[in-house]
């Protein structure tokens, strides 16, 4: 039932995705696999614009009926935009985690942060392993 992982972006082991816009900024969200694990998302706490986050630091919070989960910054940077629509319709992440359900846009502090991230094929392999 999971949607396939787009090849135009990179993935963290914590199930976040990063789409490098090629202009020093990147969009960040959680993967379809992550939303499927969380199920019914009912609340999203977005970071304030201008906040500087280090790679691996909690950046946002997603809550389902039963759980509270941190979203870790897959890359370091400054928050330059957030998906405000999620405050009213958090279920957008369930419906379209890779596009409409994006969480924030970051101005990258270090392009090197992208290097250790997984490509779609490697991420496919990771979740296949987790499912077993």
């Amino acid at each position, binding site marked *: 039932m999971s949607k396939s992982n787009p090849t135009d972006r990179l993935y963290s082991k914590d199930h976040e995705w990063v789409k490098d816009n090629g202009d020093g900024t990147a969009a960040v969200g959680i993967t379809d696999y992550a939303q499927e694990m969380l199920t019914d998302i009912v*609340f999203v706490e977005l970071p304030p614009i201008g906040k500087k986050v280090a790679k691996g630091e909690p950046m946002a919070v997603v809550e389902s*009926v*039963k759980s509270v989960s941190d979203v870790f910054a897959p890359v370091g940077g400054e928050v330059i935009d957030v998906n405000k629509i999620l405050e009213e319709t958090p279920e957008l992440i369930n419906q379209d985690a890779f596009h409409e359900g994006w969480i924030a846009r970051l101005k990258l502090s270090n392009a090197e942060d992208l290097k250790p991230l997984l490509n779609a094929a490697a991420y496919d392999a990771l979740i296949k392993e987790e499912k077993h």
Partner: protein
Amino acid sequence: MKKTPLYEKHVDLKAKIIDFGGWAMPVQYTNVIEEHKTTRESATLFDICHMGEIEVKGPQALDLLQFALTRDLAGQKTGQVKLSALLNDRGGIIDDLTVYKMSEDFYMLVTNATTRESDFLRVQSILQEKKFDCRMEDVSNKTGKLDLQGPRSEDILQKLTPADLKGIRFYHFIESQVAGLQAIISRSGYTGEDGFEIYASADHIGLIWDQLMETGAVSGLKPAGLGARDTLRLESGMMLNGQDMCEAVSPLAVPYGWLVDWNKDFAGKSALMTLKNQGLRKKLIGFEMTGRGIARHHYKVTKGDREIGVVTSGTYAPTLNKAIGLAFVVIEFAVPDTEVSIHIRDALSPAKVVKLPFYKRQK
């Protein structure tokens, strides 16, 4: 982890399994919101085999329970269910349990899963001390329990039983058959909806589950897990033992004062009387979030810069589409409409005290 007789069915249904007090239980089959709404709108079936059943039999069964439990059971009729509290010597709640009067000298106690042993030991020690002429048996392992909950429960169950379900009033039960198998059918539950708790032999409970699922399919019956059970009970203002209360909490501090009958003697009464005379410091209240965020278990409650309490249960309420919870707060703030704040991560979010229940079904 312990498994109920229905465990394999949950796995086949691809349920998400969690550890609930040492039991491998389904928390959800599809998602909590869907299962919650199905319960309110049609019907759902819950595996509740993990709960405890204790039989008390003998000429002085009533005498034992009258002394062990806070509720006056003298007027209880055969076929009637009564909710009661079992206290320790300090007046704290060991468990909230239901008492089924099977006949004049035969009762069944239905306990929470996590307190089954402590309930048994407590009542047994009273039995030994007072030397009542009766005996107790923990029949949990050979007893299965299903909760069929929701407005269509009666229609579904009626197709599988010769019992006249319309004749069973709320908090009453009969001994009959379901799918041709011996069962106790009780009109009760933990969701705030109409519905039934069905008890049968652990060997038969799987067959009854299958028959109900098959017969109920046309009425929209779906299985539901502990996730929906928790949001349903919380919306209906019902507490969960071990979370909203514990052995350090008296029934007076939670909305269980009505379970205490002061006109009889019972274990824990003198301590409870002392607590009553001292006056309460804190009380359990319901609240709803007026600001953003969802309150969760253990979050702090503040008023101005003063910490006044702690959240015991908190969730997003699917039927009400808002965030609600229960909290222990200092008594002076335990008044409906009082504005308070909930400490959510590093921020304060406004909430207000409200009357329980949050949700009440239309009858």
